[in-house]
Every structure is written in structure tokens, then in C-alpha cells.
């Protein structure tokens, strides 16, 4: 579904991604782990071209995204939902409006239908009673669930998560992970950057370990967690587990 060929990304002289080759298939749930600063966010953001790759190509559902014109890129981005560490809900819109603005304004979905979808999705993430609440009145966990629902409202084929629980108070992590687990079980293709090793072990089909701009090791959760081959993976896991 997404194919990454020789992806490189530099900020000025700082080469953050150094030749990444990877493929994500339909329905797969992949968890990306690795030390802070290793390039995980940059990798994820290159997938939907929020960051422009310096070299290499991203192919999504058969279309090469790199070098695509603005309009077609916008179309394809609609198929790739993204959830941010800092939620990034629109503070001037209610929960429901957060879910309907992009479908109505940029996808041309009928307002009435968008409303119905929004209500259904908010219920799905357990926030059926918060339709008219503004983000500022919601807890962190609730905001992140709205953000997930907002991405789902575009009816995407893949969901990208960048440390979705890192900014949350510990007691709220569970409610967000639960929503993500349900989503995985429904068959959604997911790429998740996270430090929640329990989630990785339980939900992931595959785990990638990134360090210093490379994907150092890739395998099933069992292989990575119980039997890591690379020294750097072992070192990292010994610190976080």
C-alpha cells in the first residue's frame, strides 16, 4: 500500500533520514520504536509529505507522491489520516465541527451527511455526548480521541500516529490506546510511532526499530522484543523495558 524507496531527508547539513527502504501492506499494523531524535517523526511526516523528502520516493496506492502537483497531493492526503502528539485540534471549532470542516470544505461532502458521520465517529470513540464541546473544555485523552475521529472522518485507507499518548497524563493513556486497538481490529492499516511497548507487543503485526536515520531492525513483536539481533536494539530495549 505504501512503498518507500531510498528515502533521504536532511535539514540543512543535518541528515536525519539516511536511505530508508520499507513497505507497508494493506491491513498491516506497524509500530515504529527508537530513541528520541532518531528520525521517527520525520519518517512518518515524509509518508504524507508534510516534510518534503530530499531524495528517494514514496509510492502510495500505486501513485508516486514525491514530485506530485499540489492538487493531486491534497487528494491523496485525504486517504492518509494523521494523529499528532499535540492533538492539534482546531480550537475555534466544536468537536463535531472539527470532524466536518475538512470533509465539507475540501472533499465536497454534503453537510448533513458529514454531520451524521461525525456523530457516529464521536460515538465510536466514546464521546457521543461531546459533539458541541470546544477542545479547551475537553481533557487530553478526550481531545486525542476527537483527533482520531477527525482523521477517520475523511475515510482514510491508512492512519499515521506520531506518539499519540506521549503528551497525556498516565491515567488517560489507556482510553486512547483502546480506541487505537479497536481500530486495528477493524482492519485499518496503521503506522504507529510510540513508546508504549505493551501496545506494540499486543497489537502490532510488525515492529521497526529506528536509530540514527536508519531502520536498524524489523520483525514480529516477538522477534524484536524477545530476541533482538542488533546490538543497538538490545541496548535500547534494555533501557525502556
Amino acid at each position, binding site marked *: 500500500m505504501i512503498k518507500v524507496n531510498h528515502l533521504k531527508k536532511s535539514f540543512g547539513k543535518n541528515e536525519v533520514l539516511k536511505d530508508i527502504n520499507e513497505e507497508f501492506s494493506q491491513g498491516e499494523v506497524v509500530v515504529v520504536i527508537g530513541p528520541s531524535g532518531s528520525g521517527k517523526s520525520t519518517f512518518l511526516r515524509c509518508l504524507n509529505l508534510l516534510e518534503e523528502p530530499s531524495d528517494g520516493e514514496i509510492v502510495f496506492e500505486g501513485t508516486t507522491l514525491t514530485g506530485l502537483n499540489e492538487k493531486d497531493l491534497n487528494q491523496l*492526503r485525504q486517504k492518509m489520516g494523521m494523529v499528532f502528539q499535540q492533538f492539534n485540534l482546531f480550537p*475555534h471549532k466544536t468537536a463535531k465541527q472539527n470532524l466536518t470542516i475538512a470533509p465539507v470544505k475540501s472533499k465536497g461532502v454534503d453537510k448533513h451527511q458529514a454531520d451524521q458521520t461525525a456523530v457516529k465517529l464521536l460515538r465510536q470513540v466514546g464521546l457521543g455526548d461531546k459533539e458541541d464541546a470546544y477542545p479547551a473544555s475537553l481533557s487530553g485523552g478526550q481531545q486525542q480521541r476527537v483527533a482520531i475521529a477527525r482523521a477517520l472522518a475523511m475515510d482514510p485507507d491508512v492512519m499515521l500516529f506520531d506518539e499519540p499518548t506521549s503528551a497525556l497524563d498516565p491515567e488517560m493513556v489507556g482510553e486512547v490506546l483502546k480506541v487505537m486497538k479497536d481500530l486495528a481490529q477493524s482492519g485499518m492499516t496503521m503506522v504507529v510511532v510510540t513508546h508504549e511497548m505493551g501496545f506494540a507487543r499486543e497489537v502490532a503485526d510488525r515492529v521497526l526499530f529506528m536509530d540514527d536515520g536508519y531502520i536498524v531492525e524489523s520483525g514480529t513483536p516477538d522477534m524484536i522484543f524477545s530476541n533482538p539481533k542488533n546490538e543497538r536494539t538490545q541496548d535500547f530495549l534494555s533501557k525502556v523495558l
Partner: protein
Amino acid sequence: MKKGIKGFIALLILFSTLFIPAEPVLAEDGSALQRVQDAGVLVVGTSADFPPFEFYAVVDGERQVVGMDMMIAQKVADDLGVELQIQDIGFDSLLPALEARNVDVVIAGMTPTAERRRSVDFSDIYFQTFQNIMIRAEDEDVYDSLESLSGLTVGVQSGSLQEDLAQQIPDAEIMSLTDLNDLLLALKTNRIEAIVMQGPNAEAHAGHDEDLHTFVGGFELDDDDQGSAIAFRQGEDSLVDAVNESLAEIEEQNLTEEYLAEAGEYMAQAELDEDGEEIEEGFIASYWEYFLDGTLITLLISASAVFFGLILGSLLALMRLSKVFLLKPLATAYVEFVRGTPLLIQVMFIYFASGMFFNLPALTAGIIAVSLNSGAYIAEIIRSGINSVNKGQDEAARSLGMSKNDSMRYIVFPQALKNIWPALGNEFITIIKESSIVSVIGVGELIFQTRVVRSISFQGILPLFITMLIYFALTFSLTKLLNFYEGRMNHD
């Protein structure tokens, strides 16, 4: 300060002449006269705060500039067979307006000094005048000559002949103000001891105010300095000749006396109502229309400037944030230049410079200048507002597949607007207050009308106080309105 502005105007004129084809100054073939007759209208510039020569009075229920000079202007226009159109402009700006072709001639009790002759031509002298000293009535026995004022503070109108004459008072400290009414107020409030004023004008004021007393100053005068003449652009001899013929007739038939008497009636009328009875109604009842007109014009200028300023400001802000070639440096240069120069000069520049090419009404020129000016400030406010919105907002929108424009329009801009609302409110209030600057080109906004009321009512302070209250009412209601909308945008 005033000298500096005059210097700048001179520079401006010099600069603007670069744009127009040099006209032969001496070889004149009747084209000036022809031009006026073709246009069918003679545009006369004056400064209507100078009774009995030019001042406002109500004629047939309408406010008009009247006075001896205006009757001369009417006679000249009649003799030329054209309509008369009067433009009331500040005295300082009259000659620039003439040279910039905003007016055809200047009739404003102007003395043809050697200095002025260097930049404009004059008609024959149509009125011999004398120069007075104005003092407080209570000082009548103290001051009676130039010598008696030695070493004291004396007021004069800036840019006037009197400014030079005041040098003849030994060791006098000189205070120059643009507005005669401010000088009279300064005199009454003991800030200055005397004013050097043109004779008939001083008598007109003293005759209407028992706190004032005036006497003939006994100045040494050049021949040039004793009369009033009409000013023309250099090289328009055919027009000068035609006007001189009318002036000769006026002299022959001794019409100025008749005109002065008529002007005296208008001045008396300022204190009488239509049936000739003394006005007993209050000040506001007599002059509220001036304040209303001024307020409406001020509102019109401010509202237009806010509207066009917002459009221009948004455009400039987007240009400054854009990556398209040249857009950013262009917008930056514009903003820096406009913020780095005084609004006063911008207003004069647009009015006078445009006068060289086409006839832009003063109100339009004023609205354009204030809009162009506020656009630069609003651009900076909007730019900082857009920058103040967290980058994650745009990224979230883009990740949903929204286009750059949609993201700006629906996500970033509404939040920026909320952040900058107080700063925008400040700017709107500034616009209301600063719009008063367009009074220098004769736009009848609130400050301008206040000047008019002060000169016809012979009241110094009360009009100022009323104007202050009106401005406060305007800005305070605007603040309330803005607060209301700010509350509606607040979702935190």
C-alpha cells in the same frame, strides 16, 4: 517643525515637477485663460478663517465661504464667463496646492512678498492693508507700541507676512501657529502677550470680542508688504492679464468698500438668527450642524480606511508570507516605507502629486492616503497574527487533505483574527483619531469643522471641548463593539 514641513513641501513640488513636461515659463500664448474658459470653472483656493476677507456664513440656509475676497473671486469669474468653485485649504498649503494644479488661483488676503514671488506670480494689488497688534483688552493701557512689547512673547500665523514683521519688535520671542484661532486662544490664556495681525482681520475679531483690543502697529513696511494680491502659477500671463482687468474695474468703481460692508453684515449675522434677532439659543443649537457634518465625514473616512486597509493589509500580509518571487520584498518595502514616513506627508503627497495629473477631490485623496497608511499597519498586525498560530494547526489541516488556501481561510486566519483582535481594535481607534490629519488638504472632517466653528463663533475653547467629547464617544462605542465580538470569538 513647520519650517521643516514647508521645506518638505517645496522638495515635493520640486520632485513632482520631474514628472511633468517642463512648460516654457515665459512664452505664454493665452492657453491658461483658454484652459479656464474651456473648463467653464475657476477653482479658487482660500483659507476660510480670515474674516472679513474669507470666512463661513449661512447663506440661504447653506454654509458657504463668504467675505470680500470671495466677492472679488465671484466678480472675476463672472467677467471670465465661468462658474466659481471655492476650495478651502489651510493657509500653509495654498501655494503648494496652486503649483500642484489643485486650484487655478489663490485669493486669500495674500501679500505678494519677494519670497513668494519667487515661486508664483501675482496680480495687481487689489487691497491696501495695514498691520495691527492685537492684545488683551485689560492691557490696553500697558501696550501701545512695538517698543512696549520688547522682550515679550508675541504670536504670529506661521508662513505669514506677520511672521517677518514681528522681527521688528525688539527682542521679542516669537510663537508661530498655523491657526489664527489658536493664537487668539493663546493670547486670552496669557501664553502670549500680543499677536501681529493683518489690520482689518484684527479689527473684525476685536469688534466681536470685548476681551480683545487692537491698534495699528506702526511697522516699517516695504511697498510690497502693504497689499493683498491674487496668486497664479508662474507663466500664466493671459490669466493674470484677464484678472487684472477685473481688478482695475473693482478699483475704479471702488467696489471693495461695498464688498467689505457686505462682509460685515455676514459677520454680524453670525450672532443673529434669520429674523435678525440676537441668538439666544445655546452654542450647540447654533453650530450642531457643523459638528454633525464633521462627525459624518470623519466616520466616512475611518470606515473606508478600515475597510480598504483590511483588504490591503491582508494582501500585503499574505505577500510577506509568500514564497513567490519578488512578492515578499515588494510588500516588505511598502510596509517599511509607509510606516517610516508621517501620515501628514503622505496625505499631502497624494493630494498634491495627484493634482498634477488629474483632479482628485480632497476627500478621495484623504481616504486613499489614510487607507494606504493603515494597510501597512494592518499588514504587520495580520502577519504577526498568522505567525502566532501554532504551526501544528496548518499541518493538521494539510494532513486532512485541505489545500493551502482552505487551511489559511478556515483554520489559520480565524484563529489569527482572534489573537490580533485587540491590536486591530487599537489600529481602528488610531484611524479614527489620525484621520483628522486630512484637514490639512481641506477635507471637512471633524477637526476641520471645529476650526470653522471657532472662527465664526469667536469661541476658542468650547468647540475644542465638544470635539473631544465626540471623538471619545466614537472611540468608546467602537471599543465596546469590538469587545462584544471578541467575547463571541472566545472559546477557551
